[in-house]
């Protein structure tokens, strides 16, 4: 391939036109397909062999710095080297065969990893969900039946539904209001204010739970000052301290507020850039026609950013639906605060019930499909009318 004559075929490739059927070494002959498969498998296989045969990566007393360095060398350099080696090997093939195989050396490793880490497990999880806790026999729909009849699971579902109704709506409302108002400030104040709202986005859900531990902290009366700010305020106004995490039903709201705190920044940043892209002359025109700021917001801004609102809403909804860390850390699912994603981990990881865990995972998956389908359809319609 080092001195290739420029053929029309190569130009065709660049223009994304399908290759004409080739005589001789047909690009779809079995041997070419075997080569393609092999070239896709080589890199993942080498990776796995390399990673898992080096015992020192498993040893507990190994110097962490060494591990980090090896990790970086392999992760960054090693993989490039592997791809380069594959490419050289393919270049040694007859040119036609090489051209037919090369795309699979490039795209193949990604496909193999995806097949192993997403496609196979997803199928397997479906099967496991129809099996008992040790995955030794099929029990048909028993797991699903339990999910929709036993109160532990029903409570999780109820809570999850409330989470997805409340969190995206609250984060969107606050984010939109904030973005709209901040847009009217000087750009420096706007940036500072937006950074403060956005900052929690960099914090892990576990970290956020710890942050809020000190908001919701509760001391029984007579056992020292309240160190949680909510209870301190309550007591300062003469109230009795409240153990927020154990107030039935309301404790769910207090947990949801943590996620709202985390997600509002996301909504705000995306909506803010959408608001800024609303054409200025439209806004001016409606103001000249006598519309007040609220009318401008309702009639011009909101319709212009409607599709962004839907996207942000969907994104936060999916994040919320899959939230697990916050509940796991704050209450462990106790006091009727369990949610589906948290229940899934508890069933499978803590109780070792793989069938029930799988069934809950399937529930997590199936429930978001309609929302995504609606979104994709909307998106297509927009593209079509554009």
């Amino acid at each position, binding site marked *: 391939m080092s001195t*290739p004559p*420029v053929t029309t075929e*190569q130009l065709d490739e*660049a223009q*994304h036109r399908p290759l004409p059927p080739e005589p001789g070494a047909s690009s779809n002959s079995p041997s070419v397909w075997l080569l393609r498969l092999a070239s896709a498998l080589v890199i993942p296989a080498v990776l796995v062999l390399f*990673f898992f045969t080096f015992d020192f*990566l498993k040893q*507990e007393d190994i110097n*962490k710095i060494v*591990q980090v360095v090896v990790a*970086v060398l392999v992760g960054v350099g090693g993989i490039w080297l592997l791809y*380069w080696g594959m*490419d050289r090997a393919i270049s040694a093939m007859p040119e036609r065969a090489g051209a037919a195989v*090369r*795309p699979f050396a490039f*795209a193949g490793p*990604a*496909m193999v*990893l*995806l097949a192993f*880490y*997403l496609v*196979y*497990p*997803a199928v*397997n*999880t479906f099967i*496991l969900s129809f099996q008992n806790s040790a995955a030794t026999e099929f029990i048909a729909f028993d797991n699903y039946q339990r999910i929709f009849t036993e109160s532990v699971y029903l409570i999780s579902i109820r809570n999850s539904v409330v989470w997805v109704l409340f969190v995206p709506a609250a984060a969107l409302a606050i984010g939109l209001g904030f973005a709209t*108002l901040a847009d*009217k*400030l000087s750009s420096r*104040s706007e940036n500072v*204010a937006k950074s*403060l709202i956005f900052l929690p986005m960099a914090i*892990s*859900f*576990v*970290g956020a*739970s710890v*942050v*809020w531990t000190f*908001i919701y902290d509760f001391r029984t009366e007579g056992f*020292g000052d309240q*160190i949680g700010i909510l209870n*301190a305020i309550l007591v300062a106004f003469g109230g009795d301290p409240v153990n927020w995490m154990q107030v039935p039903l309301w404790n769910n709201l207090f947990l949801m507020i943590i996620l709202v705190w985390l997600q509002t920044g996301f909504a705000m*940043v995306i909506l803010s*850039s959408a608001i800024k892209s609303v054409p200025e002359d439209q806004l001016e025109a409606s103001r000249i026609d006598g*519309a007040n*700021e*609220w009318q401008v917001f309702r009639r011009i801004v909101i319709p212009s950013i409607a599709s962004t609102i839907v996207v*942000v809403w969907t994104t936060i909804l*999916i994040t919320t639906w*899959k939230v*697990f860390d916050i509940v*796991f850390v704050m209450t462990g699912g106790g006091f009727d605060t369990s949610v589906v994603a948290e229940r899934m*981990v508890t069933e499978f*990881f803590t109780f070792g019930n793989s069938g029930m865990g799988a069934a809950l995972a399937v529930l*997590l*998956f199936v429930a978001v499909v309609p929302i*995504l389908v609606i979104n994709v359809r909307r998106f297509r319609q927009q593209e079509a009318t554009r």
Partner: protein
Amino acid sequence: MTAATETRGPVTKPTSQVVGDGSASRFPIYLAVGLVALLWTIPSLGLLINSFREPSLIRGSGWWTVFGNLFEAGAWTIQNYTQVLEGGFGNAFANTLAVTIPAVAIPLTVAAFAAYAFAWMEFPGRNLIFVTVVGLMVIPLQMALIPILNIYTNFDLNGTFPAVWLAHAGFGLPLAVYLLRNYMGSLPASLIESAKIDGADHFKIFTRLVVPLSVPVLASFAIFQFLWVWNDFLVALVFLGVDPSNRVLTVELADLAGRGEGALNLLPAAAFVTMILPLVVFFSLQRFFVRGLTAGSVKG
């Protein structure tokens, strides 16, 4: 403000339209924005203050009481940080680095090659495969946990770093391929063609031309994946486990939080140890991060 606009006569319109002219009319907006910003900052601020207080003070009084006696001798200490770092968080920090860096680099490289193939190479089933890859974004992480854990357990791979690297690589790939393919595909075709005419093969075009031109999108995915992996709790918990030598920061922090009252004084410092790097990355590379977020908000 609103009332004024409504009653405004036709003659005065053009001069007084822009809201926010003059600080008097802007004051309520400043107040509202400031209040919300303050409300959003208080939780982290309280934690930061607490992390530098004497353990007995953390337990005995709220962090806001420090404003009364800022310079009181013996009120401030870095003891919590030293104790936390020696008590497992130093180790967990190294572990998290060892998990995160390859878990970013591997999917980045693998996805870049794949994205190039999807954008600039011709092969049977190209579009169908690409659409399938993007469609895989729908599958939640939870669907993959149990079968992968079963395989890892059978081959005794659970609790190893590579097991987590490859898992994160697999879970991050759909988004990465989608982002990178869209970006690389939008590069001008004439550029790729002229490189071909000059005799460059695909590998050379990829490494010398397409990758350098794709730095912005590579950076946004890298930052996005970095924050995702660094802050991940679920994958690390399941595949690395709670063995003290293996713990990453989130697992260590969750464990500390679970110890209750006895560890209360260590929690603020510990939480900040887990947050420091993402916060630095976040503030220094905010622009890239926001772009990645906008484009890839479906991941998870």
